[in-house]
């Protein structure tokens, strides 16, 4: 999904550049405030991993190629803010040394592959973790869903940006369908690899998985002089303080994620509705590129997006997103109330090293 120079017009590139720069500044500040010594080497390793993961390529519809993104994996392993830094480092190096992704498109690439994937992945993971039992192993299904959703989300973002400032006269509906369609499949592959990686790391070094924090059992104290084989003088487990919520609470993430989803649903769906005529036009006139058009034609029922029960499609898109979020939120509330309170929270104090 690396965007090259000249793909988007200047204002859009500048806007995404500004967005990326702001997000990076916030991320740097957040990570520094955490004062974690392991942060940099772990982030470096995660970045190296993401680099490797992104080399797995798949050919996609209209000549663009798709590849695994790694944003959700990074978010699960090192947390959202550090993950944004990891992805940005990878994209920066790719742009500078490999010209993979234009330098003027760096802001765009960071926004799409660094910010959207990470924030969507993290948000989804947090939502799933709220529903699952509080165990380190729960991070695995959470990472699966997070990766699954984050990839098509980034593809949607790609299409949305192209709709705003694309520098070629391309059929937006066709682009949307092929990009999002293929990235749904790529998302599946990414979900499998992400879950497998997280599962292996959780089994041995759960301390290396940011998303699994606060899910550990309490510590036990024993008096000295207890004979080796007999039962030790077990002191009662200390009264636990509730675990400090990880830096960067979920709410801004959810709000931003929700806003992005609404924007994309509104903007993209409006453009998508205007394309069927263009598609039919092209399909009717030209007589070659059967294979490419097979992709496009197969999804021709785009006409259904034209009007949904008389409501203009943009509005329908927005309504759809709002309804989904509301239902999801209601479900979560119901589930949360039914769950019993967890008995022993980990006794770690957040101020400790």
């Amino acid at each position, binding site marked *: 999904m*690396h965007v*090259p*120079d*000249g793909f988007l017009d*200047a204002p859009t590139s500048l806007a995404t550049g500004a967005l990326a720069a702001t997000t*990076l500044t916030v991320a*740097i500040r957040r*990570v*520094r405030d955490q004062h974690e*010594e392991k942060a*940099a*080497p*772990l*982030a*470096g*390793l995660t*970045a*190296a*991993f993401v*680099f*490797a993961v992104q080399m797995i390529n798949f050919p996609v519809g*209209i*000549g*663009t*190629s798709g590849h695994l993104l790694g944003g959700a994996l990074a978010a699960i*392993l090192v947390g959202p803010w550090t993950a944004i*830094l990891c992805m*940005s*480092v990878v994209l*920066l*190096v790719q742009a*500078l*040394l*490999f*010209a*993979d992704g*234009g*330098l*003027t498109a760096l802001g765009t690439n960071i926004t799409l592959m660094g910010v959207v994937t990470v924030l969507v992945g993290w948000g989804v993971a947090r939502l799933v973790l709220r529903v699952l039992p509080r165990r380190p192993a729960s991070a695995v299904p959470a990472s699966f869903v997070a990766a699954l959703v984050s990839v098509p989300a980034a593809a949607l973002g790609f299409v949305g940006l192209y709709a705003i400032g694309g*520098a*070629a*006269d*391309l*059929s937006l509906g066709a682009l949307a369908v092929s990009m999002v369609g293929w990235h749904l499949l790529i998302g599946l592959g990414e979900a499998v690899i992400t879950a*497998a*990686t*997280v599962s*292996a*790391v959780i*089994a*041995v*070094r759960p301390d*290396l998985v940011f998303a699994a924090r606060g899910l550990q059992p309490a510590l036990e104290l024993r008096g000295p002089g207890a004979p080796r084989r007999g039962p030790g003088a077990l002191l009662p487990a200390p009264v636990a303080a509730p675990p400090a919520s990880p830096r960067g609470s979920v709410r801004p993430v959810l709000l931003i994620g929700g806003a992005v989803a609404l924007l994309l649903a509104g903007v993209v769906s409006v453009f998508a509705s205007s394309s069927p005529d*263009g598609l039919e*036009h*092209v399909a009717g006139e*030209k007589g*070659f*590129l059967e294979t*490419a058009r097979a992709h496009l034609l197969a999804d021709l029922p785009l006409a259904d997006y034209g009007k949904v029960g008389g409501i203009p499609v943009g509005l329908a898109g927005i309504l759809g997103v709002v309804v989904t979020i509301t239902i999801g939120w209601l479900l979560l509330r119901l589930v949360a109330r039914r769950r019993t309170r967890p008995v022993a929270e980990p006794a770690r104090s957040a101020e400790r090293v």
Partner: protein
Amino acid sequence: MSAGHSHRLYRHGDTVVHRLPAHTKLLALVLFVLTVVATPREQYWAFGAYLVLLAAVAVAAAVPVGFIAGRMVVELPFVAFALLLPFIAHGPRTEFLGLTVSQTGLLGAWNILAKATLGVIASILLAATTEPRELLTGLRRLRVPALLVEISSFMVRYADVVTDEMRRMRIARESRGFQASHLGHMRVLARSAGALFIRSYERGERVHLAMLARGYTGVMPMTEDRPIPRTAWLAAAAVPLLALVIATTAWSLA
């Protein structure tokens, strides 16, 4: 960007270009690319001029054409997309090489191909003449946030460790009779990715802990910043300045 990678990216030499400090080259690269991207696409001659400029740099840096061509492979996905653009874009049609294609699509394809190719060549020249460690120092001197540079330096170090561990795991697998098929590869990759992560991390972790124990705060303490002679800046500025001249001429003609 492993040691394997950087050996393929970096080409040892002792030319003027190699000796230039990394941050001057980085800045020159960025300015050059910006200038190229801002050039109106219809001024075809300008892009030829840019190519000549880059060729001059390649000669000065003793980087052979084959070296550059080999590393341009990364551009292939863009090329495919750009080539398809004339056929799938809308707008008025025109004749090109006997085919009827979209006019804007054609221009768009040219736009992407020309600018991306020039960007790729410039990047290759930078990577070929600058060692990874120097690049990181260069980024730091360009006031790239220290945290990003630190993560980059760990990424470079861990890239070596990761590829080394992958090699070891592959040897262990094949010694136990594993035959690589495409699907089998993916499955094994998925399962061994986590183990690879942990092993790589732990290899670097002990050294990192020892560094922490001696007060390491994230920045290597003893790097002196040598003063840069004026001539270095002039040399590095040559390319972007010439590019700017080409661009302004192109604008005035457009």
